[in-house]
């Protein structure tokens, strides 16, 4: 990070409410990119935030929130079309079917569609892609799933050389939105400015993936809503629609995507791994970077522990959701319901590959030359040696090492460390006495 920190900061859609924040250190300690500082008694996001939501989970006072479209409801278009993460199907207990949920959702928002089915199409496309690549490439394995926006951002800022390993297919939520959008244009049911396509998800990072996509020039979605934000409203309408319309079309596999391991469960045989949770994700990315997993073909990373059912904007506990999900998979079968010939045709036509940006983000986040950066690092080591290494966070930085960096960068004062300060005095007194 270093100096360039201020001007290179990416935007983020996580916000701290000053009125609720009491300046404890819990969010700062939880942040995997060390983006938070406590200054003047309030937490502040000052570094590279990847919208993972760890701080949302960590705050006992509910002071950290993700910005979504719903907080800005006035700006939602009059005709809404909603696609939902399959995680929604796990939130209402084991008796309620995905179709019941989609029907209830339709009462709240006007139009809905089943994204789980598109997940299965995406699985087929991934199989095609891996098969083709096996024949031509020996290097550049493993491929990395492009689904989790937090993982994509983590790679862009901390593992830029792995950016090229990300599977170059457009994620299902975007493909689905693009198809709906095209159909609406062609059939011109609404005026284009009247409709909006939104994604209902457990994810604090969908908003940034829509507003500032890494792979697409622009997103096909208009916004995102958190499942927990509309949960109660949907619940009111469960079982209130007795029509026989079937909106849900996927098999068990498309739903399985809601938890870790679900995406690769939809792939045919190959060497795949599913890794979930922030610490494990970082560890495995480090291993890939060192060339240690070259024998694996595809890694499904999910930043949230247990996968998207563990997302920060869910309404029920992730283990409860897992229980429901496992039951759904048993009911709908460990298989995909997609039409293979349709999927193959779509793949050949470039359905999954189109519109993808190819430029790789810059790898240097700072503006220092190598010489200056080494010098800075030397000074960081010097300051670090003076610190008590209690990792308490009272100074307002997440740990002693980051505090040392902040001191060197002029963003903190050595005296902000109370232990160092008192120790320093003692030395002086002994000296003078």
């Amino acid at each position: 990070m270093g100096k360039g920190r201020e001007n290179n900061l990416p935007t983020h859609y996580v916000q701290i409410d000053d009125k609720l924040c009491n300046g404890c250190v819990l969010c700062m300690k939880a942040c995997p990119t060390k983006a938070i500082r406590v200054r003047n008694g309030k937490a502040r996001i000052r570094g590279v935030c990847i919208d993972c939501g760890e701080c949302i989970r960590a705050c006992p006072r509910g002071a950290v929130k993700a910005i979504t479209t719903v907080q800005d409801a006035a700006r939602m278009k009059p005709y809404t079309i909603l696609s939902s993460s399959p995680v929604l199907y796990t939130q209402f207990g084991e008796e309620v079917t995905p179709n019941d949920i989609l029907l209830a959702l339709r009462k709240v928002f006007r139009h809905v569609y089943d994204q789980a089915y598109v997940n299965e199409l995406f699985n087929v496309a991934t199989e095609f892609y891996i098969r083709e690549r096996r024949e031509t490439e020996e290097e550049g394995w493993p491929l990395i799933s492009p689904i989790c926006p937090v993982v994509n951002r983590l790679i862009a800022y901390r593992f830029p050389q792995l950016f090229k390993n990300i599977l170059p297919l457009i994620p299902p939520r975007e493909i689905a939105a693009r198809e709906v959008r095209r159909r609406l244009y062609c059939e011109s049911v609404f005026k284009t400015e009247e409709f909006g396509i939104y994604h209902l998800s457990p994810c604090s990072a969908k908003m940034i993936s829509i507003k500032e996509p890494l792979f697409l020039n622009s997103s096909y979605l208009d916004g995102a809503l958190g499942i927990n934000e509309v949960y109660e409203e949907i619940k009111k309408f469960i079982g209130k629609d007795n029509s026989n319309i079937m909106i849900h079309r996927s098999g068990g596999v498309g739903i399985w995507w809601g938890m870790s391991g679900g995406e690769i469960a939809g792939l045919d045989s190959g060497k795949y791994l599913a890794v979930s949770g922030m610490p494990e994700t970082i560890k495995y990315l480090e291993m890939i970077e060192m060339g240690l997993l070259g024998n694996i073909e595809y890694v499904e990373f999910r930043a949230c522990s247990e996968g998207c059912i563990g997302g920060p904007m869910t309404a029920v506990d992730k283990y409860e959701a897992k229980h429901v999900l496992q039951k759904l998979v048993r009911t709908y079968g460990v298989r995909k319901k997609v039409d293979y010939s349709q999927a193959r045709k779509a793949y050949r036509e470039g359905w999954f590959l189109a519109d993808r940006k190819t430029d790789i983000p810059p790898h240097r986040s700072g503006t220092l030359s190598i010489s200056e950066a080494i010098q800075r690092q030397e000074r960081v080591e010097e300051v670090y040696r003076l610190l008590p290494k209690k990792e308490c966070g009272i100074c307002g930085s997440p740990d002693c090492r980051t505090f040392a960096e902040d001191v060197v960068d002029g963003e903190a004062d050595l005296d902000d460390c109370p232990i160092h300060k008192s120790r320093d005095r003692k030395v002086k007194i002994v000296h003078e006495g």
Partner: protein
Amino acid sequence: MPQLTKTFPIKARDFIRAGEVSIQIQGLLKTIGFEPALIRRVSICAYESEMNVVMHGGDGTLTLNVDPSVILIEVKDDGPGIENIELAFQEGYSTASKEYREMGFGAGMGLPNIKKSADTVEIRSQKGGGTYLKMCFLLSRGDGQGTGK
């Protein structure tokens, strides 16, 4: 000329923390902002030599030396030493015990990998007398450093 030196202890047979030193080095080089290709070469060597100590060595240390033109890594251990250095540099040659091979280590790629990735390698070892390994990485070697990239 700015220079940064850091020494990390490595414990023999500590498989839980094996690889930690290399990960720390990788992080440090990233913070400084070296080219990814260079970082990759250095971390592969750091990892292989760290694992060599964990598997075969007694306790040891890894010292990292960074300066704007060269990165230097020295690894010392007080283990049993290498009997035949020429053989050790051959791909597939391994003295790892069955137990280690079952854990997925000791495929005999350690030193050959190091030879491929480092610009110069110096190794001194005696049976029973520990091992000293020194690896140099030049910053001008086609890693895009200094090319204004």
